[in-house]
């Protein structure tokens, strides 16, 4: 009658074996190679790199395969690997002005130095399932123009004093993977947290600001995607050398600003920078960033979720969120037993009082 809850070890081993079998799927179908995922699922790879905070397309592709395509699980694998890596130092700040852009659009100027470059975008595709794609036809090879260096749109506004100036800041960047997040958090730290935050959560928060919960009247001043060199100071050499190249998505929003007593009207800024090609997220981050700046800009707290730094920063990490959410499927016999006893006792006392 009493079936002891023994055999956890064997149950776990069996579950892992079954998982491995399900992961592989029908063995008659060829195994996906890591390179195939890296090349053909590049946006999934980008998301895993961004939220995993580790720029390594091969590892991200491996994680996606191991996670059966569950991207949050893949992000988790990357984070758990990243955390074991030593931190050797920090790079020189990347210069997104020197970005070799594949895509660069501005919603505020019809044309501008450097031009509008659509790049590889879904924007003007018709979302019709392409049944020919099922036959996996290779597209005709394209002679892509070489990427060009283009100036920042906000620099154009800055020159005329139309947008709030941003003073260069040489404070070493904080690292929330090495220091606990303490509140209130600086803007640099907030942007860091948002850069690795969950895309879906940030998308919804940003959307809520558009619908009036912390409205900031954002225009996409510029969205650019491309590769930038990463340089690092080598103490033995005494100068910076290039150690690699990464792809980034950067969004700068131009937002309305009014109500300053001492300064003439100026636009304000929202900023989003994300690893890889993740433009939806870059835009979302810049909207949320701008909403979080209400205090600094002397705006009212309307009580909107996107204005609440503690709320946003405490809940944007999907690895923390999914872990805590899913832990409630672990056994809670002991606590439930305590509640059961309490409810029984309360009911008994109520019954006795009633009779």
């Amino acid at each position, binding site marked *: *009658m*009493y079936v*002891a*809850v*023994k*055999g*956890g*070890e064997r*149950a*776990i081993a069996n579950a892992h074996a079954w998982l491995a079998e399900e992961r592989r799927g029908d063995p008659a179908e060829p195994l996906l190679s890591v390179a195939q995922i890296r090349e053909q699922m590049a946006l999934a790879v980008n998301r895993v790199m961004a939220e995993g905070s580790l720029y390594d397309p091969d590892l991200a592709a491996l994680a996606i395969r191991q996670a059966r395509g569950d991207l949050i699980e893949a992000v*988790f694998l990357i*984070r*758990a690997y*990243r*955390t*074991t890596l*030593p931190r050797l130092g920090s790079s020189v700040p990347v210069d997104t002005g020197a970005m070799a852009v594949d895509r660069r659009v501005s919603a505020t100027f019809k044309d501008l130095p450097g031009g509008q470059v659509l790049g590889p975008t879904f924007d003007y595709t018709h979302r019709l399932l392409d049944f020919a794609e099922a036959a996996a036809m290779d597209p005709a090879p394209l002679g892509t123009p070489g990427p060009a260096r283009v100036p920042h749109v906000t620099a154009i506004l800055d020159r005329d004093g139309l947008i709030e100036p941003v003073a260069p800041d040489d404070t070493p960047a904080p690292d929330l*993977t*090495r*220091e*606990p*997040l*303490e*509140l*209130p958090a600086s803007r640099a730290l907030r942007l860091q947290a948002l850069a690795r935050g969950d895309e879906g959560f940030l998308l919804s928060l940003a959307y809520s600001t558009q619908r009036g919960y912390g409205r900031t009247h954002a225009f996409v001043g510029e969205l650019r995607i491309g590769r930038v060199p990463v340089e690092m100071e080598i103490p033995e050499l005494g100068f910076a050398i290039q150690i690699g190249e990464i792809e980034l998505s950067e969004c700068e929003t131009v937002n309305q600003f009014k109500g300053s007593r001492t300064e003439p009207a100026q636009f304000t800024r929202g900023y989003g920078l994300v690893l890889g090609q993740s433009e939806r997220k870059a835009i979302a981050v810049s909207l949320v960033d701008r909403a979080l700046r209400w205090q600094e800009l002397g705006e009212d707290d309307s009580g909107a979720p996107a204005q609440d730094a*503690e709320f946003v920063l*405490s809940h944007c990490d999907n*690895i*923390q969120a*999914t*872990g*805590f*959410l*899913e*832990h*409630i499927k*672990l*056994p*809670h*016999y*002991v*606590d439930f*037993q*305590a*509640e*059961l*006893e*309490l409810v029984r*006792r*309360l009911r008994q*006392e109520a019954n006795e009082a009633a009779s």
Partner: protein
Amino acid sequence: MSDYNFAYLDEQTKRMIRRAILKALAIPGYQVPFASREMPMPYGWGTGGVQLTAACLVPDDRLKVIDQGADDTTNAVSIRAFFQRTAGVAVTTATTQATVIQTRHRIPETPLTDGQILIYQVPIPEPLRFLEPRETETRRMHALEEYGLMHVKLYEDIARHGQIATSYAYPVKVEGRYVMDPSPIPKFDNPKLSDNPAIQLFGAGREQRIYALPPWTQVVSLDFDDHPFVASKADHACDLCGARDSYLDEVVTDDVGSRMFVCSDTDHCTTRRDAGHTGRLAEVAA
């Protein structure tokens, strides 16, 4: 696992955690922020406890891991296997044999001794969290020793239910200063927190907090003079070993209302049965 350091974490990280542990021991009940790492198991599954264990373990330790008092629940098995794999330490289910015990939701029935370390997994370290959701506020409340809100909550329980309706994670006050969440142990276990010869460490990975009770620390469960704290449990004896003084799990044995009660602490129950104690259903179960 030669690709990883002893007990998984690198030495720099362990040093950072050990500093936080020392600070926590120096200020009993105070929540020390620490730069919690991502671990290879999910947040909410004991990452705080696992990091503490990793920082405490030395090669000749003997580790015991329990979840809900039992050594053989799946997550306990998984965490024990993790340290066997990454640290190669000896493991045991015997409370008396262990040097380090990682636990979720229970304190072992067998009294701990000098030299043992009990490591708790903590989901929400802040006892005031459900009264005030903001960390910036609750830290201020602790700093000012402003615990009136907690007493109001307990009073409201009495006004509504006739008693304090908190059965686990029952708040305590440490050495007359910090109000502390003892983690979701049943309040039955609360008295064991106080004057315990072992070191008690609490780790909350997701919330990035470590706190501690050094040996022989005074820990008092919050209550009122006219509604004193009572450490309650199911009013039965263990059906396997006959113990009347151990915390019990209720096991549903059929679909017409039959129940049996068994020790939640499997080591305690096994030890008693080996010593010849029997309960009501000992023979049927065997």
